[in-house]
Structures are given as C-alpha cells and as structure tokens.
C-alpha cells in the first residue's frame, strides 16, 4: 500500500469552485472519510463534510468518489487511488451545493412528508400478528439508511432534474415498504401514479447498483409498484368498466 495519496477535493459553494489537491499519509484500512478528516485536522480545518457514525449506518457521508456515488466511510482508499495515487472527491451532483462536500438534501425531507404513514384498521387485534415470511420483503426496504445515493444517481433527478415529477428511488422504496405491509390499509396507487411519478423510472437499475445496503430497489420495489399501478390504470377490462361506470380510479 502507498504511504501517501493525493486527494483532489472539490472546494466551493453555490457560486462555484474548483478541485484542490491534498497529500495524505495513509494507514492500514484507511477509508476516504479518514483521509478527508486528516486533511481537516492537519491542513485545512474549514473543509465542509458531513459525517456521523463512520460505520456505514447513518448515511451522512455521501459523496462522489472518482465520479461514483459512495459513502466515504465505506470506501477504502486503496480501492479508489489510481496509478498515481490520486482520488477525486466531489459532492453529490443532484442536490444544490452548500459548501465543499456538503449539499442541501432538504428536498428529500419535503418528499417524505407527502407520504401517508402506516395506517392500520382500528379493528385489527393488538398486538399485531404477522408472519416472518410476510414481513421479510419489507424489512429489506427498511434497511435504507437515507444516504440518498440512489437519488443522486437517478437519471430522472440527476440529468433531467424532474424533482417536480418523481419522488426518486428512495421514496419508491419507502412507499413499497408501506404498500407491502400486511396491515396497511391505504391505497397508495393514486399517489404513486400522480405526484410520486413511478412512471418516470425507466428501469436502468443505476440506483440498485449504488445502494450501500444492497436493496433491490428496482426489482423488488419499483417494478412491483409499477405493476400495481398498471393493474389499475392500464388493464383494458378495468378501463372499460371505468368508462361504463363513469368513475376514476378503482
């Protein structure tokens, strides 16, 4: 392993900025977050970076390492340094920059507010009885640590900036976890089709590739949700019935 590496970190704010180079002394097991913190401690304490747990559990230290959306605390420097020992660290591109590696992810918190919470019939006996096999698939979705790397890589949000039309993979996963809850009684299909915009996803699976929790976002959440919506809105028999009855929805 190299004794020193070079981190090229994006320094700047909403008004623009540029990469700056820093030499970093390595140690066994060093991750990119360690390297950034070492620079903070020894060279420039004003580098803005978000981090909390340094154990890949809180999802705070999201960034783009060599252009790849990653958690800095889970990315070992030896895996990312190129032949010259250089690693490039930039902020998430999909969200407005606050400073250096810190972006304004508040849009995500606004979307979360729009999703109706779990709603269980008052007639359901307490305590709940649910089988492991019935909760397992939503437990996968609940592993999400809200690092928003999936939101960062999503073409709809990143390249087309359609934050007005699509909630993004993180919230497809969230809606799926509620929709597939054995006791939830909310019909989430209208929201999915309209404001949440599940139709925008064109299943490139980029989100799935970057998920540090290895959630099968596209296969297990988005595609089943698309099918749920299609069942109602694009089933020719139902469409005919709807027309005959003059009703919207199912």
């Amino acid at each position, binding site marked *: 392993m190299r004794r020193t590496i070079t981190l090229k970190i994006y320094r700047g704010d909403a008004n623009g900025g540029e990469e700056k180079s820093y030499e970093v002394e390595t140690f066994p097991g060093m991750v990119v977050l360690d390297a950034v913190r070492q620079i903070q401690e020894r060279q420039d304490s004003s580098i803005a970076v978000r981090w*909390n747990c340094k154990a890949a559990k809180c999802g705070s230290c999201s960034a783009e390492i060599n252009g790849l959306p990653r958690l800095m605390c889970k990315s070992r420097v030896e895996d990312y340094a190129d032949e010259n020992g250089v690693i490039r660290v930039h902020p998430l591109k999909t969200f407005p920059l606050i400073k250096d590696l810190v972006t304004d992810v508040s849009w995500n*918190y606004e979307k979360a507010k729009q999703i109706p919470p779990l709603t269980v019939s008052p007639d359901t006996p307490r305590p*709940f009885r649910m089988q492991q096999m019935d909760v397992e698939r939503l*437990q996968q979705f609940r592993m999400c640590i809200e690092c928003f790397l999936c939101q960062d890589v999503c073409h709809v949000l990143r390249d087309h900036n359609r934050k007005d039309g699509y909630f993004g993979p993180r919230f497809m996963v969230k809606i799926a976890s509620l929709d597939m809850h054995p006791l939830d009684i909310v019909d989430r299909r209208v929201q999915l089709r309209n404001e949440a915009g599940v139709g925008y996803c064109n299943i490139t699976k980029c989100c799935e590739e970057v998920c540090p929790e290895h959630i099968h976002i596209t296969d297990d959440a988005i595609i089943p949700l698309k099918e749920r919506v299609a069942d109602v809105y694009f089933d020719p028999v139902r469409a005919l019935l709807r027309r005959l009855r003059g009703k919207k929805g199912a």
Partner: protein
Amino acid sequence: MESFETFEHDVLVIGAGGAGLRAAISVLEAGLSCGIVCKSLLGKAHTVMAEGGAAAALGNMGEPDSWEVHFRDTMIGGQFLANPRTVEIFAKEAPERVLELEQYGAVFDRTPEGLISERPFGGHTYRRLNHVGDRTGLELIRTLQDKVVSLNPTVYMETTITRLIKEGDRVVGAFGYRRGSGRFVAFRAKAVVLATGGWGRMYKYTSNSWESTGDGAMLAYEAGAALQDMEMVQFHPTGMIWPPGVRGLLVTEGVRGDGGVLRNNRGERFMFNPEYMPDNYKGKFAETEEEAAKWLDDKKNYRRPPELLPRDVVSRAIYKEVLAGRGSEHGGVYLDITHRGADFIKRRLPSMYEQFMALGEVDITKQPMEVYPTIHYTMGGIRAEPETCATTVPGLFAAGECAAGLHGANRLGGNSLTDILVFGKRAGEGAAAYAKTASFAPLDQAQIEAEAAVLLDPFINPGRESPYEITRELQEAMQEGAMIARTEEGLTACLQKVLELQERARNIHVEGDRHYNPGWHTARDIRFMLKTSEIIVRCALERKESRGAQWRLDYPNKDPEWARKNILAFKEGDAVRLETAPVPEMPEHLAALFDEETLRKR
C-alpha cells in the same frame, strides 16, 4: 451585536435521536407547538448505531418473563446504584412502548406464532430483546422519525445549541448557531427537553459518532442542574480493533447472544474461568462448554454461556486476558461465530457480516473476529425525576443517554432502546404539562451576548492552538487515565492533563469563515468535552471502590457504604463541586423481589 433569528415554541426538544423524537411525539400529541433541534440531519442521530434490540418483557418466547424479572435484572446489572422508582417505571412500561412502536410502523422480526421475536442478551434472565436483525436502532429511529413528521413539527436540522438561556432559576430558551450559514439562532420556549445522547467522543477508541460530545450534560450543568454518577462510562466488551481505521467500531452483543464465543490465543474459552464469575451471578450460567452448546437449542433446560455476563464483567475479563499475554495478534481476543454457519450468520447478523467484510476484510462466517473493549455508553448524566424527567432546574427536562438514574453503574444491553422510548415519552409529557402552566419570557440579551462572544472568539483569538490537536490530546489522556482499569495515580495525571488542556483551549484559533466550518464547530465542542472529562475524572477519583463500570485497581472491592451513594456534580463558578446523595431506598414491594443475600452483597 449582529441580528439573528428567534423562534418560539411551547416546548423545545434538543436532540433528535430516539428520546428526543419520542418526547416530541408526546408534545405534539398534547396539542402544543414543538421545535426539534438536531445537530445533524434528521434521522442520523446515534440511535441508528444500536444493533441488538430493545429490552422489554413481552414474554413472547414461552419463558416466564415479567416486569419484575426485568426490574431485578436491571437493578443487579446496575449494581444497585440506579433509582429503583426509575427502574420500576421502565420495566413496567417498556412492553407497551415497544408495541406502540409497532403500531407506528416498526417491523420487528417474528416468532413462529407471528409475535415479535425476542433474543437473549447479557444480564437478562430471559429472552427479551425485541429486534430487527442487528439493525434495531435504525428501525427505531426511522419509525419515530416518520411518526414525528406525520405530526408536523418544526425541525431545525444542523443546528447546534451552545447555551440555555435562563430567567431567574428557570430555563426559558436556548441559543446557538446554524451549521450551514454559521448564523446565530435563538429559541424562546416554556419548557426545554434535553435528549442529546452521551459523550463517548472523549475517548480515543469509541463506538460513538462525532456528535457524542456531551452537549446536553454541559448545557444542563452550565444552567445549574445536578449531574449524577458521571464516573460511570460503559466499555462495551467487543469493539473492532483491526484495521486501525475502524478501531472502536461496535461488534454487537447479538453475536454472543446468537452463540458467538470468546477465546484467547490459546484457544481457551476464558469466560469459563471461575475467577471472572461475580458472586451475584454464580450458579446462573453454564459451567461447561457442552452445557453452553446445548443452550443454543434448548434455552429452557440449560443455562446460558458465560459470554453473556453483563458488559462490565466481560470487558474486565478481556482486559485481563490481554494483560496476561493471552491476547490476539492485534491485542484483543477472538470472537468466533463460524460454527453457526453462513446462512444463519447472514440472516441474523447482516450488518456485522457487511461491516467486517467491507472494512476489515474478514469473513465472519469463516474466520473469528478480533475484539477489544470500546467506549460505548454513559450511564451517568443529568439527574432526572423518574415520573416526569424533570431536572433540578425548573423548565428543564432530560431523557435518554444524557440523563441518569436508570442504569446505575452498568447498563444492560438492550435497555437503552427502551429507555429512550419510556422516558422520551415521559419527558415529553412532563415538559408539555409544565409548558401548559408556564409562560414565555424574554431572552436575556446579556446571556446571549456572552455566548456569542465565546462562539466568535476562535476567529479573533491571537493564539495558535488547534481544536483538533486539543481533541486528540484529550482523547489520548482519557484513554490512558480514565479507561477500564483506573487508579488514583492514573486519574490524577489525567485530571492534570485535562486542566492543562482547558487552559490551552483558551488560545484556540480557527481559519476561514462561519459558513459550514467544521474547525469552528470543533472549537466550541471541545469546551464541552473538556469540562465533561474533568467531571468524569473527578467523580472517578471520588468513588473509592470498584462497582460496575468503575473499576479501581487500588480499591478492587465493592464498598457497602458506596452502594448507597450517588455522586452529584454542580457548577460553582468555574469549579466543580461534588457531593453525595443517598440512592433512593427500595420500597418494600420492590425489595421483596430480591433474596437477602443479594441485597446484603450489594
């Protein structure tokens, strides 16, 4: 002075981990306005790190569990320093709080009957850790976060409170800064709930995140509140030790609950060494490896393995093994769960598998882990009333890890997640009830200006001290002098160093501006860390006995006199004043839950 925003809420909750969020739910459900301040983004608080589960005697596993047994386990685990009334409320209300969480949307692992599955853990007589794999904390915080968001609070993310504002005796507001802009911000409130977590960052090797800098305890202390049992800092027996970058990272007790065994470099399961078995637990644990192995499949007829003794006991044993030259390659011991098979391990301990694979290049389904005690939790903190979580200062409430009274000298694993539910709720209700009878008060400009000057000093200070360097030296000093094995000599040297660093901290200088500047943030955090450290060390010097997390090599035994005393710390000018207060007596109905010998040997 520059202008700044001032917000007004009936109740201000500082901290948005489990305790803060649960408190906010109570405030909002009481129909009051609630502001939630969090140092990070919402949902990132230290609660996400909790792994094993939430202890509550639901009795879903066919064992005769009850609140009484949970009460007894918690009192014994805490070596009788806890407030019995606090523990009684806790043990009685924990099951209800867990079930409520399920109704908010938490999805726990299930038993074959479809109920919440409960796992065994250190110091708990029966299986009672309600869990979701090994990521129970994440489930808990996300569930509470969703519930809070549905009740429409105002959340101030990335906002740091550095001083409580008082009017006379009473707390009427708070002051601090927004991280992003660096602008000052003030809050007027009728009541304030502190739910800021612990202070594990004072140590070099810690399982705590950067936020654990002791803000809540210091805000309360500065406001005149009593701190209690500050010497009680928990060392979790199993932290990662290799590679150096991840040293201190937690390895959940769930590994041992699910059959993981501890071995030294001779391959011996050293926890079977009778020398490590405390009197209180004699006869309650398996005495042979065969019996321990049978327990895995038949928990009713066999006793549990001694790896599941309380954390203070296992930590000391590991310390002694390493000291005696029986340690692993990198100076720890081996924790091995390979015998349980890859499928089982990946299903029950998915984040441990991932953590070791990604960060340590160790496949825990094939190789043992290397572990050593790591700083994990602070039992001491702000003295709080059991019923309402009121502190000794009017208008100020405290819940969760920053409060004291439930865990005594040693916390049992799993009790913290239910602590934050039970007392988060009670603190929210206590603060709401108080707020309904109180009025808003104007914020005293002099207090605000004094704090603003403290905050801005590092930019204009001509000194050359770096906040990071002082943090590093503090962590080394605490690791050296106030760690698992303590002596008068080591503690005194540590105190000297802490006081010296406090002096040096007067000369901290930082560059740059106030716009998201971590160097500047650290300059303020370190003041709290230094004062908290001083109090920890002074209390550890004061308690001349060994009890729970406080292990004094020069006073190796329990002292029945000290069994009846809590140590309180108060601010007196710049000095720390210590006094003792009697541990509240157990009423008859609670004392009757113990045999006489246990009480006599406390």
